[in-house]
């Protein structure tokens, strides 16, 4: 049941992207993802800290960092291109040495539309990791998410897109976007 719900949420989240969404998320997860909240691991910057999670289950070991950013300048156009994802999605918090792997795709979380893109990260310890940057907007506000994969990247991406659709995260995101 839980797995079905996760798949359904992912399908809703990716619904707008059509073929592109399929390319980003080629296969359903074999087991459910469970995100366990951990401490926000990054030093303070210009945006208020967000929430950090570590995955058990389908994306074991993956980490997800979610933030609200109020004061996004492209109020009318929204997250219209991949460069915008590069700029805002917080991938650089994990490692500033990032390379996009491919063109991004349109995604949605709830009513908010935006884009997701995959990256290769060179970590300080010399390791290379896959990551996914997600940015969706509501007028002049953003919800951004950066997911650091440690396994199947497609599964991580599906789980990263589905998790913000949970009621708890939607409630948190609405409050954060409203400045509450």
């Amino acid at each position, binding site marked *: 049941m839980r797995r079905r719900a996760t798949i359904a949420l992912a399908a809703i989240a990716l619904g707008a992207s059509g073929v592109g969404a399929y390319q980003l998320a080629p296969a359903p997860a074999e087991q459910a993802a469970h995100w366990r909240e951990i401490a926000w691991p990054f030093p303070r910057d210009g945006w208020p800290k967000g929430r950090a999670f570590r995955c058990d289950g389908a994306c074991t070991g993956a980490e997800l960092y979610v933030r609200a950013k109020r004061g996004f300048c492209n109020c009318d156009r929204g997250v219209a291109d991949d460069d915008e994802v590069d700029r805002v999605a917080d991938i650089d918090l994990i490692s500033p040495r990032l390379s996009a792997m491919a063109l991004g795709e349109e995604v949605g979380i709830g009513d908010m539309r935006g884009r997701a893109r995959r990256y290769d990260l060179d970590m300080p310890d010399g390791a290379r990791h896959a990551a996914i940057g997600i940015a969706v907007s509501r007028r002049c506000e953003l919800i951004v998410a950066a997911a650091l994969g440690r396994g199947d990247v497609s599964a991580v991406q599906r789980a990263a897109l589905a998790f913000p659709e949970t009621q708890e995260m939607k409630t948190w995101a609405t409050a954060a*976007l409203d400045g509450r």
Partner: protein
Amino acid sequence: MISRVRLAACLVLFACSTAAQAQKQQVIGAPPEASNMKLVGTNDLQARSAYQPTIHHQGDRWIAYIGHHGGTDDVPSPVNPMTGQAEPNGTSIVDVTDPAHPKYLRHLPGQEGKYESGGAQMVRVCDGKSLPMGDPNAVYMLRTFGSQAHEIWNVADPASPVLVTRLSGLKDTHKSWWECDTGIAYLVSGAPDWRTRRMTQVYDLSDPAHPQKIRDFGLPGQEPGSTGAVPTELHGPISTGPNGNRVYFGYGTNKGGILQIVDREKLLTGPKEPTPDNLRYPEISRLPMSAFNGAHTTFPMLDMPVAEFAEDKDGKTRDIVMIVDEAILNECTEARQMVWFADVTTEARPMMISSYTVPEASGQFCQRGGRFGSHSSNESMAPVYYKKMAFIAFFNAGVRALDIRDPYHPKEVGYFIPSITSATDKRCIPVEGGARCKVAIQTNNVETDDRGYIYIVDRANTGLHILELSGPARAVAGLPKN
């Protein structure tokens, strides 16, 4: 009995809080709030949201060219009463020769679109006779056309501008700089292939009819094909021309600001291919700011004598850059955006030395509605105020006059907060289940002219206010008593 007392106490508290709330908010019909500044004249600018004013002495006239943001949700294209037509916000051209009676000459429509997605925000003006290859009978106005293009118009007859040049194909524009004696322009553009929304396109506009591209410029990591984190986008540059040989670039808006000091000659003549090495080549240094603050305006004031250091063997004069952040969120829902002074005398090691903000409690500005914080300063380097006074647009706290003769200790000596009118647009914040809106002045930009008049314009559609100093503030600038 106890419950009646409680009820009465609650009513008194409610009445007091309501009265206090009412005091915080501006009301139509109330007089302006002022200290050592007074109103000379106004123009409603057709109730268009205003950004950059530039005042130009043109023959025996003084003309104000005022850039506009796009329209609002309620009124995307206000009606121009001079034509009877709904026109997307563009450029207002106002004769301010008699500042007590400004005369609106022309509205030049801009790009369709609301707020920052339309209009024609930026404007600079150069005489054809000062440009090396300009038509000596022409007066050239450089403006943005929304996010799409830069345009040059001949405004020799300011009521009848004629389009000269259009540089289009951009994804954004902003606050450019144009050297009137050389024609070199630093255009804030969004080149389609760059990874940032705003960077610099350097042009030779010495012959405005035939623009010559010199190069693209930005921070390494913004250029096409680069990887890694994308540095903060450009807000605007100010050049000191060939004599000063420096260009001061301000990056960021309300976060992660950077002051970048650039060797102008190397920028213009150095290798132009936008590789990381070539982009670094003209850079002298950077001053990274707090993640809480951005750099809207980076205004250089070089070789300033500082009275406190007059007896010192070295360092009697200092090179100062005033950095103004831009507040972008309503009702103080961000870190305070304010004014910073950097000592860049030792260019490789610039250092912040002082700051200025309006005390919030002096007007309960976080409760008034709209933005509170700095946005921009005057950019005129005319002797009347240069290195003596600076004027800061502070949104709902109006304009602030600063004595900056000692940049280590800037001091406010005057202010003016215009009255709101029926044209003043509301500003809202999200609340549970909807939005709560308030109406407040939003002094957006400020400029001065060589006569000493101060021009402020409102982002919330309240128009243009022309001011002059009064009282002791005049002495700071060396102006005679009035």
